[in-house]
């Protein structure tokens, strides 16, 4: 039987334009549905929805500052999303992004303030590593509790979020509190500003777009390589799909689940560190920006694929930025945007059914055509 495997498999690796089209089109339809309902709400609020949505698009993509702002938002979403890709691929549900971001942010504040005399070329990378390590530690705790004591990770990560917030409160009103605030008698809930050599460089002047976005994209590629090209990633995916089969082939299931949670925590930790180093330049209340949750949405929109998460977080970031801009332009309450975003999430996941059915049909059809050839 002469084999044309290489040619055949090569063919399946070719870019699947129809697939990409459907995978984009249906979510877009979902977004449109949500915007349609949002339009009704806008009309009730006596706002012309067309003006409002024009502002939304203009705000997100219509200007250099809008685009950079979208990318600034997308950065932590992508970083948290990368961790979520790893965790969900191992079939552990990590709701602890918020706490892990805080852990990373705390560490990334404390470290440069402690070693403020170090030059930037050493201080910045070490700060990122420390941020990663702190987030990883925050993910490791639920990880080890799951591996060793079978504590459900949804419960522990939810609880760890609250614990992280209180830890931050404690530090920010004591050892990390800005001495200037104490002197001035304002006692603001923020740390001292970080030394400038540790700030991430701005990619576009007069905007907030910082080098963290590039770091995030590089990390996305690395996570892709990690999950699909390395033995560790292979094991994590095997554990996620079928823990029993993984166990039977000698893969340590609890270890890999704990590892996945730890890595997920690490990526959220980097997200926190990069928010501190690139945007805020200090630790303050509300540092997470809710990215611990919206990062989950970004990752799932991206099909739990690190590279898919890149456009997904940009899309989600654009909705957030455009939403704010729309709020400024037509002066509707900010909460309307949150409500519409919620609907976007609901309808986009809802649309996945058709995408899935369509893909399955094509797969089977392709399979039947090819059956027996190999």
């Amino acid at each position: 039987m002469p084999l044309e495997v290489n040619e055949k498999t090569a063919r399946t690796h070719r870019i699947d334009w129809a697939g990409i089209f459907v995978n984009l089109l249906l979510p877009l339809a979902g977004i449109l549905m949500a915007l349609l309902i949002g339009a009704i709400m806008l009309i009730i609020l006596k706002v012309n929805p067309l003006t409002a949505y024009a502002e939304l698009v203009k705000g997100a993509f219509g200007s250099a500052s809008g685009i950079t702002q979208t990318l600034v938002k997308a950065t932590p979403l992508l970083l948290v999303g990368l961790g979520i890709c790893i965790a969900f691929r191992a079939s552990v549900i990590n709701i602890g992004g918020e706490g892990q971001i805080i852990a990373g942010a705390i560490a990334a504040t404390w470290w440069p303030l402690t070693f403020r005399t170090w030059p930037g070329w050493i201080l910045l990378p070490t700060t990122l590593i420390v941020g990663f390590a702190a987030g990883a530690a925050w993910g490791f705790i639920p990880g080890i509790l799951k591996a060793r004591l079978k504590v459900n990770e949804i419960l522990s990560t939810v609880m760890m979020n609250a614990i992280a917030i209180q830890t931050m409160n404690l530090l920010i009103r004591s050892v990390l509190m800005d001495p200037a605030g104490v002197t001035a008698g304002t006692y603001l809930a923020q740390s001292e500003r970080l030394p400038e050599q540790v700030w991430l460089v701005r990619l576009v002047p007069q905007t907030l777009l910082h080098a963290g976005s590039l770091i995030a994209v590089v990390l996305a590629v690395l996570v892709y390589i990690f999950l699909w090209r390395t033995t560790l990633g292979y094991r994590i995916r095997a554990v996620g799909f079928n823990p029993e089969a993984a166990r039977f082939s000698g893969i340590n299931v609890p270890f890999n689940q704990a590892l996945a949670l730890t890595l997920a925590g690490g990526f959220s930790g980097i997200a926190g560190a990069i928010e501190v180093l690139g945007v805020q330049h200090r630790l303050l209340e509300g540092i997470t920006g809710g990215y611990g949750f919206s990062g989950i949405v970004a990752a799932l929109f991206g099909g739990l694929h690190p590279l898919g998460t890149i456009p997904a977080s940009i899309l989600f970031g654009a909705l957030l930025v455009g939403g704010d801009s729309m709020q400024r332009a037509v002066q509707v309450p900010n909460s309307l945007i949150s409500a519409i975003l919620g609907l976007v999430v609901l309808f986009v996941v809802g649309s996945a059914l058709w995408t899935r059915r369509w893909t399955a049909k094509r797969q089977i059809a392709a399979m039947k055509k090819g059956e027996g050839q190999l």
Partner: protein
Amino acid sequence: AAPTAAPTQAKAFRIAVVMPSATTDMAFSQSMWNALVTIQKEMGGEAALEIKYSENMFNVPDAATAIRDYASQGFDVVIAHGSQYGSSVQEIAKDFPKTTFAWGTDVNTFGMPNVYAYTAAAEEGGYVNGVLAAKLTKSKTIGVTGPVEVGDAKTYIDGFVQGVAAVDPTIKVSKTWTGSFSDVALMTEAAKTHIAAGADILTGSSQSVVGSIGAAKDAGNVLWFGTQQDQASLAPNLVVASQVYDWTGMLREIIASNKAGTLGGKTYTLHLSNDGLKIAYNSGYALPADVKAVGDKAIADIISGAVKVEP
């Protein structure tokens, strides 16, 4: 709703405000919002003063975008109403030298001619409230419910404790913190715990104290002292007095200077002495005249400098 272009001769003065919480928070953001609305009425409505706002901007990059956007839209004054917005103001103000930026609460104008900083000496009203509370307590136990021990939640409460101690150092003031600015349920339970422990007067700070006020109201005979906003409407019989942040004086001055060509460079601190802080006695509560006299004396002493309250 969007303001319709007024066919008046004079162009409207334009102010934009960016706030970390909602305009309805009964606390910090609402105090600024109410002041702006008051000023707008004074000046003659939307035709004379256009106000735009961005609320719930707890995320700093979002706020920064909003601040920059308002500045580039040509607003005369952009108010960054959150201490976390400092770095953003510092950066953006450089790029818009013709725009006035006001930010608070902080005291730092970064040495820029177009930046105002503002803050409130919350400890002063705290002190007055403390003096009044010490006079009114029968159980000699007072409960304080706060979110996190930072910012004006801290300075107000520190002032309050000093006020109580000035009257009677044996009075017990116990404090609870809930660790959250928004957890109303826990704040309520904290207040109920104080009541169960014998407190007959409560005070506290942050938007979640609406829960504490509710607890006082449920108990029926527990008095409340407010801060940031006049909170009498929430318990008309039980709120004795509230320290009110009144930003209108500052706003008037900023607007007038702006029209006259001065764009910033100054720090405002709300004090009792400059009418930025006011003690709003609740008319629904029959405050004995002698107690009120002690309160008024404390106010006068602070204004005159005879009493110094440490933040």
